């Protein structure tokens, strides 16, 4: 292992020290490679991608490759370059046995898991997951990898655009909940897949909602710091329209929370409420515009009443004069 300077235990300690130094900030903040190191990672990754990509299937770099097997082991270079792990070397996770091909027999067992690097976050997430509806009963247990592809995953706070976040996150849930085959693979015996459309028949245009809002919005408790991984049982899910369709929409603390700062900078405080986010009936309200509209309606009402009153008084005055 020439490229590794520290043992696993040592780098673990180093990481802990770094976190303490940075006031317990996240790993992403602590990960600060030099441009040279980044370039080195990129070059190293190109070597792996020379075989593990579509291009390699069309033009194999080596003659005796098992192309059939390789077809199932493709990493999309563009998706990887956009992912949260883009700056990492493949070898950072595929730690040993992959430098040469054919790869080592036990290479797969050496792959780092999420909590090797994200131990602090993973501890919280694992605790939340323990209480999730998916934690017990499943024939095939879920792991982080069931929902997260480390080669593609993009953190919501980097994606920012709600429609992109929604597409990524809902694909995860619908991957099982819209597919009998995948669901059956995990489901307890004899459990058939509840039809997602039937379960949400109370929600008008549910499929439209799922283009603009995430499953986790309604199915997890709110957590101010991260996305909770505790999927609640169905009787605890949000069913109240006004939870989202109102001024204090839960969406601003969840789906839209990564937009807030940037929008306020771009549009100013008053306008960011209406310009930055998708338009959601009841939630998108501009206080200035609403103030003007309400004032005009009140003015119309008061104007008419006043006019009527003066008309009435004037008529009485005229009648009294006629009598005199």
């Amino acid at each position, binding site marked *: 292992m020439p490229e590794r300077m520290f043992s696993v235990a040592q780098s673990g300690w180093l990481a802990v020290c770094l976190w303490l130094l940075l006031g317990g900030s996240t790993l992403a903040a602590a990960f600060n490679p030099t441009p040279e190191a980044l370039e080195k990672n990129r070059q190293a990754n190109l070597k792996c991608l020379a075989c593990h990509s579509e291009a390699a299937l069309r033009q194999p770099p080596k003659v005796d490759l098992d192309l059939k097997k390789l077809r199932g082991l493709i990493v999309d270079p563009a998706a990887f370059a956009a992912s949260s792990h883009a700056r990492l070397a493949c070898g950072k996770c595929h730690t040993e046995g992959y430098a040469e091909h054919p790869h080592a027999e036990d290479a797969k067992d050496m792959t780092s898991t999420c909590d090797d690097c994200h131990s602090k976050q993973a501890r919280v997430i694992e605790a939340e997951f323990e209480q999730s509806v998916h934690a017990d009963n499943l024939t095939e247990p879920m792991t982080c990898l069931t929902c997260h592809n480390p080669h593609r995953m993009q953190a919501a706070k980097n994606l920012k655009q709600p429609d992109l976040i929604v597409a990524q996150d809902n694909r995860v849930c619908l991957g099982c909940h819209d597919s009998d085959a995948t669901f059956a693979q995990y489901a307890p015996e004899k459990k058939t897949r509840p039809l997602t459309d039937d379960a949400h028949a*109370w929600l*008008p245009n549910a499929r*439209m909602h799922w283009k603009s809002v995430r499953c986790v919005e309604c199915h997890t408790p709110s957590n101010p710091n991260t996305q909770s991984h505790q999927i609640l049982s169905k009787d605890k899910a949000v069913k109240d*329209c*006004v939870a989202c*369709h*109102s*001024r*204090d929409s839960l969406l601003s603390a969840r789906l839209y929370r990564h937009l807030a700062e940037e929008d306020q900078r771009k549009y100013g405080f008053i306008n960011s409420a*209406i*310009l930055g*986010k*998708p*338009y959601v*009936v*009841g*939630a*998108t*309200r501009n206080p200035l515009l609403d103030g003007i*509209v309400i004032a*005009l*309606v009140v003015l*119309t*009402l008061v*104007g*008419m009443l006043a*006019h*009527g009153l*003066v*008309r009435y008084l*004037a*008529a009485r005055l*005229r009648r009294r004069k006629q009598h005199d």
Partner: protein
Amino acid sequence: MTERIYLFPLWLRLWHWANALLILVLGVTGISLHFAGPDMYLVDFSLAVRIHNVAGLALAALYGFFVIANAVSGNWWQYVPKSPGVLQRCWTQTRFYLWGVFKGEHEPFPMTREANFNALQAIIYWLVMYLLLPITIVSGLIYLNPQWAPARMFGLDGLLPVALLHYLSAAVILMFAISHVYLGTMGARPTSTHKTMITGWHEAE
């Protein structure tokens, strides 16, 4: 004795009251939607959505009827202010509302079979019926099928201009409706024009 003339045929009266009812319903549910929240006591959000969507479609259909019936019957001509002196007559009418009516003056342009709107009415009714209401209806129909709206517009959510247009045009229509009800008390007696819209018969002074 007052003179009675038959002004409004049955179809027009039925249209008028159906239109008024739908706009009232759409106004109440629309307000419930826009100002939705735990402190909104008008109509529950989910119910408001269902009512608003049905009433909205009904209003769109009714509007189609209105346009066709107006064209066929020739009633559309009432909405065209007749030259010359339109501005002068508008001013005379405005002056009457702002001043003359308090002194007990008579309506400067009483309703006749040939012209049941005064010039000011004709212009305002034309704007409301042929400009504002279509804007509200078309934006409402797009709102009902958000996929018709552009995905993005000027870097903003494409539904934003549609929703704003719907909200603002609806607000102006509600303001018009309020003043419309009030101006309806300006007949021979406060109730007489409302009666006219029910019976079709107008009492001239």
